[in-house]
């Protein structure tokens, strides 16, 4: 089971994978970190391929862990993203969110949703703590 993932091909992760003219493509994140240290590449791949498949092109990186300045670092190759979007590549949700937050696209609804849910959660927590302290 999943032997094809263990026997990884020695290919560059920055691109050069299969690209067929009429096949659907997707811009997505692929995890390139190790255990407890996620790190993502933003890549274009054929949509039907595996998440660890050899990408057509790498379009950027995303480091979800905050650094000592409290930043989550994202790098984007906007020209190529524009090109691939014009070529009708599908955007996966996390990538769309990242692009929305970077100001390249309109902000994704999921961002709003998580924000208000977090706010609600914080409020309820505060309320419960208040009630606990008052009682």
């Amino acid at each position, binding site marked *: *089971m*999943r032997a094809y993932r*263990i026997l990884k091909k020695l290919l560059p992760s920055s691109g050069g994978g299969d690209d067929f003219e009429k096949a659907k493509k997707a811009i997505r994140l692929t995890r390139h970190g190790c255990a407890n240290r996620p790190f993502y590449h933003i890549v274009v791949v054929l949509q039907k391929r595996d998440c660890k498949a050899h990408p057509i092109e790498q379009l950027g990186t995303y480091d979800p862990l905050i650094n000592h300045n409290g930043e989550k670092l994202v790098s984007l190759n906007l020209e190529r993203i*524009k090109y691939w*979007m014009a070529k009708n590549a599908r955007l996966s949700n996390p990538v769309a969110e990242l692009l929305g937050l970077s100001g390249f*696209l*309109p902000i994704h*609804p999921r961002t709003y*949703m998580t924000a208000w849910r977090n706010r609600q959660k914080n409020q309820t927590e505060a309320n419960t703590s208040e009630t606990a302290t008052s009682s």
Partner: protein
Amino acid sequence: MQHFCKQELLFGKLLCKTKPVNQQPVRFTRKPRWLPRAPSKMFRVPVRPKISTEERNELFQLFTTYRTSMKSIKKQLEYELETSYTGQEVLQEIANKEEALWKKCLEINDNWNAEVALARDERLAIEREAQRKLILAQLIEKEEEKKKQLEAIEEIVRLEKEKSKSYITVENIDQAIDKALDNIVNYKYAIDVAGNIYYNNELEKQTTETGKQQQQVKVVN
């Protein structure tokens, strides 16, 4: 395959219970699709997410606006990509570049032509000079030849004139006839190897020296 599908056998194999050293693989193992639920999760009821109607409406609104804006953005990007290949300005720029290249090529060509023309003029001048000299030489040669020919002709004419003194003309024809009738020459004879002349199978001996000379001339002829 059927006995492989049995739960105990499979888990026994996965957990390596049949081996003396108990190895338990933790990563990259997953319950196969055909196995039933795990016993610990048998009676778990998953909690459905509760979304209020307000939130749903809000999300619907947000998603619709997002989708429409994304559509328009995608169209714009497609348009931009297409114009980057076939836009008026881009085509104009390509045409300008081509024109500049053409101009440059023409300039190079003109320079080259001028260079070649210089070299050719020089060469042609030299060739013309050579031709002129050759023609001059030929003319001189021809003239000399003509002169020689004229001389030869004149020589012939002179000889003819000299010969014409002994010609038979109307004035001296009677004398010539008389002379011929006086000296009849008989050519009906034979000659042997020694040069002796035989008339009618008889040897005619000539004693005079002049006769000998005549005889020799005849032999030579």
